[in-house]
């Protein structure tokens, strides 16, 4: 199911390949981030460039063996391995969130082995009560102060409000793109993934312009009905877009996702508030939840709603190995999907290409089963 290459997609892909050059042209200090709860608006408002660290798949992880346990989050291990190889030396700082045990240990192990860089640990509540919102607002204020101090800048409320408005625009465009693509499937899912990925690398102004053009192109293209089972992916970080390609090579379609490096980053916009930090606090604690949050049902409801909205015939759970929050969700969400007659498949990745063969076989079997289900229905 090779979609046509829209000129703007080609543009985004080229820009993503040259992202380092584009970033340096803007001349803003680069702040690396990992977790999709990172309040990018604060980094924007400081005049810094937020850059999401998501290593490419297939890099050797053995480099990490001397620094962290082998049976550990493969995302964290790959990052550490790459960091030790100097892959992130071009960054001027890092913001790590206390999202889960592996993330906080990434913060520790990084600091121990690569001292010297500015690195800020931002706490992150797991609940969304009013007192949690107030507490998290204080934590955000701590990040503001740390960035101001390190980069000798002032982060004004006006700059925060502007950053929120700008990011909201990107969020709504990305969401529109998903919705526009939902029926037509003009953009293969791996390309859509590439667009979202580019949004986390490129200078926001450069990206926003091309994104608007891409959206127009996708909306303007003639709609063709495509057969085959429709799948939704829910999971942690998608390390390897090849998995999405496998699915589409089997003549199924990935119509939507609930991934850490997919829609979870942008699905909802930040609500209005006269106090921008309060707006950010409320938004991030209340956004589409990661399995780390207390209220798992809110996440399940979101996935179920996406299954309906995107008319998915099946769900793929995709997780990197050793992701406890996600793994504990699987039995419950699987059951809720089954109650609605939606079959699901659990796939685990580990950031190496070694597992791809097995994954491919399982995807093929799952899609074959779905196809039979669709036929008998």
């Amino acid at each position, binding site marked *: 199911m090779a979609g046509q290459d829209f000129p703007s997609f080609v543009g985004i892909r080229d820009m993503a390949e040259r992202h380092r050059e584009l970033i340096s042209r803007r001349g803003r200090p680069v702040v690396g981030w990992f977790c999709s709860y990172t309040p990018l608006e604060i980094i924007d408002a400081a005049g810094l460039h937020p850059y999401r660290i998501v290593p490419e798949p297939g890099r050797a992880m053995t480099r990490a063996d*001397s*620094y*962290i*346990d082998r*049976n*550990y*989050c493969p995302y*964290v291990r790959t990052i550490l391995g790459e960091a030790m190889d100097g892959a992130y030396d071009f960054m001027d700082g890092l913001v790590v969130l*206390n999202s*889960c*045990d*592996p993330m*906080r*240990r*990434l*913060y*520790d*192990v990084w600091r*121990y082995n690569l001292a010297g860089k500015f690195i800020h*640990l931002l*706490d992150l*509540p*797991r*609940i969304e009560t009013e*007192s*949690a919102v*107030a*507490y998290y607002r*204080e934590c955000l204020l701590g990040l503001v102060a740390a960035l101001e101090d390190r980069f000798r800048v002032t982060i004004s409320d006006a700059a925060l409000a502007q950053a929120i408005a700008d990011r909201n625009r990107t969020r709504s465009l990305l969401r529109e793109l998903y919705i526009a693509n939902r029926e037509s499937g003009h953009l293969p899912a791996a390309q859509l993934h590439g667009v979202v990925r580019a949004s986390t690398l490129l200078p926001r102004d450069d990206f926003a312009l091309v994104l608007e053009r891409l959206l127009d192109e996708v909306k303007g293209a003639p709609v063709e009905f495509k057969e085959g089972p429709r799948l939704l992916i829910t999971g942690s970080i998608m390390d390897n877009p090849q998995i999405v390609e496998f699915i589409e090579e089997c003549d199924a379609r990935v119509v939507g996702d609930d991934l850490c490096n997919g829609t979870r980053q942008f699905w909802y916009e930040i609500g209005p508030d006269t106090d921008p930090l309060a707006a950010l606090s409320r938004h991030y604690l209340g956004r589409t939840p990661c*399995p*780390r949050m*207390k209220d*798992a*049902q809110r996440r399940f409801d979101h996935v179920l709603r996406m299954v309906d909205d995107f008319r998915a015939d099946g769900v793929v759970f995709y997780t990197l*190995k*050793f992701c*406890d*929050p996600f*793994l*504990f*969700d*699987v*039995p*419950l969400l*699987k059951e809720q999907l089954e109650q609605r007659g939606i079959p699901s498949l659990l796939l685990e990745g580990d950031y190496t290409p070694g597992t791809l063969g097995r994954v491919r076989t399982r995807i093929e079997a799952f899609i074959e089963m779905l196809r039979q289900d669709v036929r008998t229905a």
Partner: protein
Amino acid sequence: MLGLLKAAFHPAVAHRVLRRPLTYELLGRLGKNAYSRQNKRAQGIWFDFTSREMKAALRRENLVVWANAFFPFELLHALGVSPVHPETIAALAARLGLSRQAISCAEAGGYSPDTCSFYRCATGLNMENLLPPPDLVISASYLCDGAVKFFHNIARYYGCDYFLLDVPYHDTENARKYLAGQLEELAGIIAARQGKRFNPDRLVEALELSNQARDYFVRTNELRRASPSPLSGDDAISYVLDMQFFGPGSRAGADFFKALYEEVKTNVDSGQGPVAPEKLRLLWLHYIRPYYPNEVLSYLEEAGASICFGEANYVYWEPLDVAKPFESLAARVLANPSGGPLERRADLALELAEKYRVDGVIHFSHWGCRQSCGGEYVIRDLMKKKGVPMLILDGDGADSRNYSREQTRLRLEAFLEMLEANK
């Protein structure tokens, strides 16, 4: 005593026996007497305490509350609920040979073998209807991502409320206020469920009992500097730790630590200890050890190596201020060395290695424990710089399928040989 229990509880009959309150009443009495006769009064108190809590929960005498090991139990004792601590039950099930079946049951239900075996075991025991159903489920959010999720799933299973104590990362004034506020809110919620008003006097009483326990525990830990080590590592990382988690705030908790102090003092005064002559002294890093039948600790002891201290037994909190009960409980939680940045845990490990004059350190890397395994190499490196060898021992606390007797023995043997050569 546990051996006797094991013989009586063939898995086939366990279902019937374990669900009966009477079982725990009898066990409590038998255990207390049996342990007293062996001069193990503290262990007897623990046994009686744990049995009584199980009996009360099964009889549903009070509101049944499931809570995790890192929650400040003083609050629950003050409220007079019947606490259930699944981590203890999973460890006991492992000891009694019941964990394998339970773990298989959880895995068949979709729980990944990569998650912590204590929670898989407790999930399985629950699926087999062996545990008292909760009225309310509580967990503290720090140190273990798995706990946040396991307790959530239990609450869902029973359709009851789930309260997550959201523990901040940094110990700041704001963090204490936020945490204390949650504890106070929870006290109100539980009292309302019990149909009564929250009684602050009961909390003051619980805090005083906790302080009594703490005082004896600090003194016991001081005594553990003696050589030969006066308390076995096996005891210290099983029932002592259990009482440290779940006893504070109860009368039994205070009695337990007093009795423990007296036992340890008697040993120090008479120069006795479980490992004599003591050839090597070791520090144990992690909250747990293997609880199913295994040879790890017995092998070390037979080789003349004592686990003279474990980080888990360290008293990291200040005495609780009865004038500010919620704030001081919050401060206690935030002081946990495994919370916050790794320096806290690493610095403590280095301090303990020096204080207890250890020859080596064993980091028990429990399968599925992310906070602990994530920092082990850094700690090993820091120890190395101080000239203290550290062994990273991969293993599993509750799932015996991850235990290889030969491999473990080989690694321990090599480590002890190296330590002896260093002496």
